[in-house]
């Protein structure tokens, strides 16, 4: 068996938009897309881009970066032609301004991105743990102020929904007799049993997949034990476990955690 480290070619996953006003939807995959939003030519003097998506379990941080670009600088810097930008995250119960500013409040350097000036890169990182499973929207806009003849823009890049938890909770329940736990899970499945009876019990868990392992032990009253099963491959994958006992008195609670549960992006996601 050999292991080879290689350089992957840069895949052309970039999607580019010139969007005066519009909506797009996130793919299932946490992806890095780039966009340029310009207010040029818009009758309402502003350009915007929004993307709505569901925050998956285990992915509780959003990050990205942007640059404010403008032709107002340097000629109209400090004037009333003070174009603005805004980046906002919103989800039910949570609204966060990721970045905002205007021409006069920004530091500028000459730009090679097709505009006279650009600001330093603005990075944002937001904890979205309260929004897991909800529809969230990232919204970006750039507005002309004073007149519409000189354009400004917002360059957006590196937008990521970042995985923050290796294991995510799946199903749970109780057994008072032998039974089956099954479902779509990931490369690793942890099943934690707690003996809620007043007497000890044996417990055996058999992975029903080809080459599946069987693990067993004795649980004292109120004792917890975790069984870990792993399999390499793409996620999700089918898992099925037979739970059995040799004891007459069997009363256990269980909870499943896995590297993939329903609502997470497929692995690989591209």
């Amino acid at each position, binding site marked *: *068996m*050999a*292991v*080879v*480290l*290689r*350089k*992957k070619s*840069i*895949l052309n*996953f*970039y999607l*580019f938009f*010139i969007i005066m006003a519009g909506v797009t939807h996130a793919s299932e995959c946490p*992806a*890095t897309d*780039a966009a*340029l939003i*310009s207010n*040029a*030519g818009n009758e309402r003097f502003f350009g915007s881009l929004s993307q709505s998506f569901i925050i998956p379990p285990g992915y509780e941080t959003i990050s990205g970066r942007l*640059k404010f*670009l403008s032709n107002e600088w340097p000629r109209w810097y400090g004037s009333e032609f003070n174009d603005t930008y805004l980046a906002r995250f919103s989800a039910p119960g949570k609204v966060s301004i990721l970045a905002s500013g205007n021409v006069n409040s920004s530091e500028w350097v000459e730009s*090679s*991105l*097709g*505009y006279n000036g650009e600001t330093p890169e603005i990075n944002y990182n937001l904890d979205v743990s309260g929004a897991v499973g909800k529809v969230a929207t990232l919204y970006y806009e750039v507005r002309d102020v004073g007149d519409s003849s000189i*354009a400004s*823009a917002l*360059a957006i*890049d*590196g937008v*990521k929904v970042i*995985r923050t938890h*290796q294991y995510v909770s799946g199903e749970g329940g109780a057994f008072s007799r032998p039974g089956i736990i099954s479902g779509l899970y*990931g*490369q*690793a499945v942890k099943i934690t049993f707690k003996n809620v009876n007043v007497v000890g019990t044996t417990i055996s868990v058999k992975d029903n*997949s*080809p*080459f*599946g*392992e069987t693990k067993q032990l004795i649980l004292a009253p109120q004792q917890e034990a975790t069984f*870990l*099963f*792993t*399999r*390499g*491959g*793409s*996620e999700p*994958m089918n898992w099925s476990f037979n739970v059995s006992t040799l004891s007459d008195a069997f009363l256990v609670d269980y909870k499943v955690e896995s*590297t*993939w549960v329903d609502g997470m992006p497929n*692995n*690989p996601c*591209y």
Partner: protein
Amino acid sequence: MRGVALLFFALASVLAFQGTFASEAIHDRNEDGMELRMMRNDIHDVYIEKGTVWLKLTPSAASEFEQLTHQRLGKSLDVYVDGIHATTFDVQAVITSGTLEIRSPPEALLEKLQNR
């Protein structure tokens, strides 16, 4: 005329943007990849059912696979069997079982595994 000029300017802006800022966009997909190249003698047993192949690795190959998945946690892994690309996935756990599931394997791989 002014509208055309603005559109031209905006297109030029995008081209410039693509060549610089966007090319710096790094995602896990673009970082160094790792290939795991297995030979037939690394495989202890094979089970084929409904377009899915399960491989049980030999103890030594399983140990290597465990170490590799430990090193590659959170990163991509390409698996080749006998020179045939079998599967690609992001490693989300240290795989201690020595078992690998390959969904929708290429015909050439199925043929090789069936004739091993």
